[in-house]
């Protein structure tokens, strides 16, 4: 049967499934992949060997790290990140990485091997139903059951991952499919799926609402970055003279130098963004999903405020919050059309209010030791060694929030953080993906707890000579959980006081990297000099106060009335 089909299509070259995969990846512009080999992907790795001049494989220490690296690569470059893993445990190790990418709408292509088709369903060695497992955390996934469908599936996976709202796609390829042969049609990239046309009357309605508003407030999210619409956002905001609050995912879309920038909204958002959001008469949500962490108590949120929701994903409209009106489509196309239609405005009073709240915000929420090695000082100092294009990754916890609050982002795609899933252990892989994708030094702000989850990937950075500057905000506690225990659990510090004796400098050296400890700002500066002159990774263990808190804080499901500022 195979012979017959290859004869029928003899204008095409016949190739193995594994070769079709690699050729198709290359023809989609993929020249860097992350992964980890094993029995069920031996054929794919054999093709990687044969194609080694055209496609570079970065082996990690653990498939989770590879998945985060592919995700970080995608976030930093806007191009799909590809990760390869073997069947069974290799595939299940990807799960957290895929879920992280899914929650943050990152275009990751995950390729897993599986046991040969006749062995599927027999609990064969290293068999797992990874397609079943990842169904709820992928945009789509496949098990390839016919070699003649493989090429189309790979091409389609790239289309799905990148069309509309991006997201991860998994392709599970049984071993016999990798070996069988089929005609190869060229594996060319196909155009993205067209979106339904934007409803003109919805834009008109939105424009009318905006023209009626006297206190407009823009709430901008990751969709701005996915749609490459940062410039369009600014032009729009300028015309309607609105301040911009950002979700954590949207932070890097608004340069810190912009007067309109309020910073992050939500639980640990800035005082100004929370106050202005609460006082505005029109919240214009653009590429956001009004997640619980970003809005708090939504009944309060909406009391006197209308909501205009603009998003590419129609299911986000009225999912978390009921909108007054909405526009569905690509932000990059909607915003210029809307900008043209709205009146040019200036709101002197509203602007003064914003300036006032920004000032108050600066005064309140002071840290414990703001003159010493305080998180704010650490982040601001590190920023001086970086440039506007430097990719910054974080793990999850207090250090992540401090980075979101204090790091001065200037360009989209420079902030890689796990917003939706909140994955501790994301950072090392993401920083590696960022360094590979950006082809330059990246920075990781991590916590002692998070770093213990994926520090193995330091070996990956050493192996591939990737210049990743690792800043550990070492409070010796699971700081964010501890903060909740302090505020809401009567200071019962259950299992959050780690006081591990890990020597991070020795850890770095043990992996073949370099590092040092910093207990003062002076020591930090010296360390940064070295770090930014080092060819590979460099670890700086910054000792900070364990009682330092992330402020301000609006307690879960609270509102601006409940804000904690000191």
């Amino acid at each position: 049967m195979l012979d017959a089909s290859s004869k029928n299509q003899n204008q095409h070259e016949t190739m193995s499934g594994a070769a079709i995969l690699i050729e198709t990846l290359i023809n989609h512009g993929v020249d860097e992949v992350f992964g980890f080999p094993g029995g069920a992907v031996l054929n794919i790795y054999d093709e990687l060997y044969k194609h080694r001049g055209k496609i570079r494989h970065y082996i990690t220490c653990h498939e989770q790290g590879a998945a985060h690296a592919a995700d970080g690569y995608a976030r930093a470059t806007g191009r799909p990140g590809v990760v390869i893993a073997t069947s069974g445990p290799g595939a299940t190790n990807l799960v957290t990485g895929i879920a992280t990418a899914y929650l943050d709408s990152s275009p990751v292509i995950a390729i897993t091997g599986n046991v040969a088709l006749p062995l599927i369903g027999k609990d064969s060695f290293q068999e797992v139903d990874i397609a079943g497992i990842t169904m709820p955390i992928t945009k789509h996934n496949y098990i390839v059951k016919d070699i003649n469908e493989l090429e189309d599936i790979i091409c389609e996976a790239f289309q799905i991952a990148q069309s509309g709202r991006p997201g991860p796609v998994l392709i599970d390829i049984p071993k016999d499919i990798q070996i069988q042969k089929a005609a190869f049609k060229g594996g060319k990239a196909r155009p993205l799926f067209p979106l339904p046309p934007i409803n003109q009357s919805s834009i008109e309605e939105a424009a009318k609402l905006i023209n009626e508003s006297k206190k407009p407030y823009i709430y901008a999210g990751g969709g701005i970055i996915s749609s490459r619409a940062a410039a369009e956002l600014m032009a729009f905001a300028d015309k309607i003279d609105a301040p911009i609050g950002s979700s954590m995912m949207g932070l890097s879309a608004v340069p810190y130098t912009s007067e309109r920038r309020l910073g992050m909204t939500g639980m640990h958002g800035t005082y100004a963004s929370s106050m202005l959001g609460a006082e505005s008469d029109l919240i214009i949500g653009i590429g956001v999903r009004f997640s619980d962490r970003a809005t708090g108590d939504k009944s309060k949120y909406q009391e006197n405020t209308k909501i205009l929701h603009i998003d590419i994903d129609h299911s986000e409209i009225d999912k978390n919050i009921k909108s007054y009106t909405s526009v569905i489509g690509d932000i990059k196309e909607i915003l210029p059309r809307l900008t043209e239609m709205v009146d040019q405005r200036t709101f002197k009073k509203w602007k003064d209010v914003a300036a006032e709240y920004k000032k108050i915000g600066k005064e309140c929420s002071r840290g414990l030791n703001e003159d010493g090695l305080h998180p704010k000082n650490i982040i601001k100092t590190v920023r001086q060694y970086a440039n506007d294009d430097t990719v910054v990754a974080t793990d999850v916890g207090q250090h992540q929030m401090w980075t979101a609050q204090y790091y001065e982002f200037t360009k989209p795609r420079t902030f890689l953080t796990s917003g939706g899933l909140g994955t501790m252990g994301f950072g090392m892989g993401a920083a590696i993906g960022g360094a590979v994708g950006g082809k330059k030094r990246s920075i990781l702000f991590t916590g002692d707890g998070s770093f213990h989850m994926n520090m193995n990937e330091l070996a990956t950075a050493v192996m591939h000579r990737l210049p990743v500057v690792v800043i550990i905000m070492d409070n010796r506690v699971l700081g964010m959980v501890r903060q909740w225990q302090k505020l809401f659990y009567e200071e019962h510090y259950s299992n959050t006081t780690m006081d591990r004796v890990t020597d991070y400098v020795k850890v770095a050296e043990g992996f073949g990297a370099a590092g040092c400890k910093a207990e003062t700002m002076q020591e930090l500066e010296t360390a940064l000099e070295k770090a930014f002159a080092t060819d590979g990774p460099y670890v700086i263990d910054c000792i900070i106060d364990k009682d330092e808190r992330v402020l301000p804080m609006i307690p879960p499901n609270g509102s601006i009335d409940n804000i904690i500022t000191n």
Partner: protein
Amino acid sequence: MEIRKFTLSIIVMNKFGVLHRISGLFSKRGYNIDSLTVNVMPEDERMSRIIMTSSGDDATREQIIKQLEKLHDVKEVKLI
């Protein structure tokens, strides 16, 4: 909001796991499935029609339809 029963006609590609995708979507998002039948479409065997009854308030019903429409193998969702 008032909980009401409603019936959906969902046309899907007969691809691997399509029923799993649909039932998985319902369990993942906390929607109810009250009944469900699947039939291959006589005019095109590559497709099936799922008739499903569910219940929920208006907002839930709208969400269910939109979430179903996002699935790659779902070609059409209609309220009947």
